[in-house]
């Protein structure tokens, strides 16, 4: 097993080393309050603390050893005039942050409910980007169920006959994820063994029209137990988003696209098990950094790390990738 030996102790060792390297600046106490206002001190090791690939809290060797696959990536937010240029920039940041591979979906500009042509254009861009990924990215086809027949055509064009390995749903206007039109698309996903990623959010401020929550997605998943479905963002309001997934075993929790609030990953591991959680970032609207922190900062068993960071996603993708001859 390639990820043997990864433990939280390694991370803490890195942290302790960081603390030692950081040094303690000279200081003067503020009278009896015991408050220290730092003054100039010898802190020459600071930059090393961050720039050295082997140093720091979450050292690069550890991240690389986890073979991190990011299950939720977009081209939007990156510089580049073409999908190929965008992919180059995505890989540049991925290298910097120890991310080995990515699942990519939606176009260079998000364009929802804009007709079948807009859907096709975005899928074309994803297919083009994946070509430039040197085996480090897979793509999913965007599905806008408002255009059901066009979706079925896109599945044939991009997944059955093309290189894409999954389906991505955003807002299912005017219906939600549990609405009947999605059944036909799930059936096709099942036939092709395509992975389904479906956006969900639970917004205190009110969901958008057609914006599903994990509750609707869980309903859909129950009707299609053989389809592997990833619950995008796990509703973001994760204390409410995790419970609906507990008893629906073909649904996986995606950690992406919300603030790095402490406790998210711990609750997901506790309630779902580490085997049902996939790391995702939602770049470029989010950073790799804040989203990696959800896993690397979590108090979870060491054995959970490689699963969440990549093994689970690769396991989900393996059947369709093997059928297509794509190596993960």
């Amino acid at each position, binding site marked *: 097993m390639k990820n043997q030996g990864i433990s939280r102790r390694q991370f803490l060792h890195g*942290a302790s080393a*960081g*603390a030692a*390297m*950081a*040094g*303690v*600046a000279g*200081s003067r*106490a*503020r009278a*009896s*309050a*015991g*408050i*220290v*206002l*730092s003054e100039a001190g010898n*802190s020459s090791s*600071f*930059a090393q*603390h*961050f*720039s050295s690939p082997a140093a*720091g*809290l*979450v050292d690069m060797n550890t991240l690389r050893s986890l073979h991190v696959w990011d299950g939720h990536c977009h081209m939007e*937010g*990156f510089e580049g005039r073409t999908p190929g240029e965008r992919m180059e920039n995505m890989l540049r*940041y991925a290298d*910097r*942050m120890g991310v080995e591979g990515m699942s990519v979906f939606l176009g260079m500009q998000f364009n929802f409910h804009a007709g079948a042509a807009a859907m096709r254009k975005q899928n074309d861009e994803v297919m083009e980007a994946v070509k430039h990924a040197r085996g480090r990215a897979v793509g999913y086809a965007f599905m806008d169920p408002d255009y059901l027949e066009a979706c079925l055509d896109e599945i044939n064009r991009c997944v059955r006959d093309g290189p894409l390995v999954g389906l991505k749903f955003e807002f299912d206007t005017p219906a939600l994820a549990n609405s009947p039109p999605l059944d036909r698309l799930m059936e096709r996903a099942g036939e092709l063994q395509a992975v389904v990623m479906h956006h969900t959010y*639970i*917004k*205190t*401020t009110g969901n958008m029209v057609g914006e599903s929550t994990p509750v609707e997605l869980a309903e859909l998943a129950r009707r299609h137990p053989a389809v592997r479905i990833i619950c995008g963002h796990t509703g*973001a*309001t*994760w204390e409410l988003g995790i419970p609906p997934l507990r008893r629906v075993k073909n649904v996986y929790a995606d950690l992406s696209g*919300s*603030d*790095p*609030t*402490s*406790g998210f990953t*711990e609750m997901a591991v506790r309630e779902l098990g580490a085997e049902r959680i996939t790391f995702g970032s939602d*770049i*470029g*609207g*989010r*950073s*790799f*950094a*804040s989203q*990696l*922190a*959800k896993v*690397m*900062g*979590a108090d979870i068993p060491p054995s959970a790390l490689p699963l969440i960071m990549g093994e689970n996603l690769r396991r989900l993708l393996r059947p369709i990738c093997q059928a297509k001859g794509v190596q993960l």
Partner: protein
Amino acid sequence: MIDVNVSLFRWPFRRLAGDEPAELVRNLRQKGVTQAWAGSFEALLHRDVSGVNARLAEACRRHGPGFLVPFGALNPKQPDWQEDLRRCAEVHQMPGIRLHPNYHGYTLDDPVVAELLALTARHKLRVEIALAMEDERTQYAFMRIPPVDPTPLLDLLPRLPHLRLALINAGYQGVHSTEHIPELAKTGNIYFDIARIEGIGGVARLVERTSPRRVLFGSHYPFFYFESAFLKMREAALPEEQTRAILEGNARRLLTGGE
């Protein structure tokens, strides 16, 4: 490494790893932090501000002398807030205060804000304004607190040349971003922390939009996983001098009053 944005005690809606002061200090030290500027989660909802500040000062003294730097709470919409301010400065010897305008029900164009900021400058207190504590979209349904709009500061700051101000938790506000960061950066002694700066390479973009001298390392720990801020610095891949400034130099300058 100076973390300008940590909070002590209990978040009202969730238990957090690190919400006991001793545990917080231990965790931060382990992560390489050498000093942490601490506000209090109690400041958000408690009306007894004086008690909040006394507990904050005591916890900092007991659990992190020389490490935890207390930033007291102040609610200028409550009676006799001026006395709370005086106690922060003179009794507790705090170097600064942390404001939560959205939790306390006022906006930055309220006349009391100008009065408060002028008074803090006279007491040589630094001011942190927390623009948000959490994404409005994921808040408790009966406790919706929109982020603070910093726009009025564009008019206020030129009139307060001695003010030492940091906006913490600026940046990602749900689907929106904090507006006017570049314009605010030009107004004088204002700083921005990185805790809620988002997007790929977000910290590098913040530096471009402001100045490497105006960005502070803040984690919003323990509400956020500390590693988020730490990894953002790696993702930014800034030159060594800028990294050093953000990790410590800028905070030190803000605290010691240098320009």
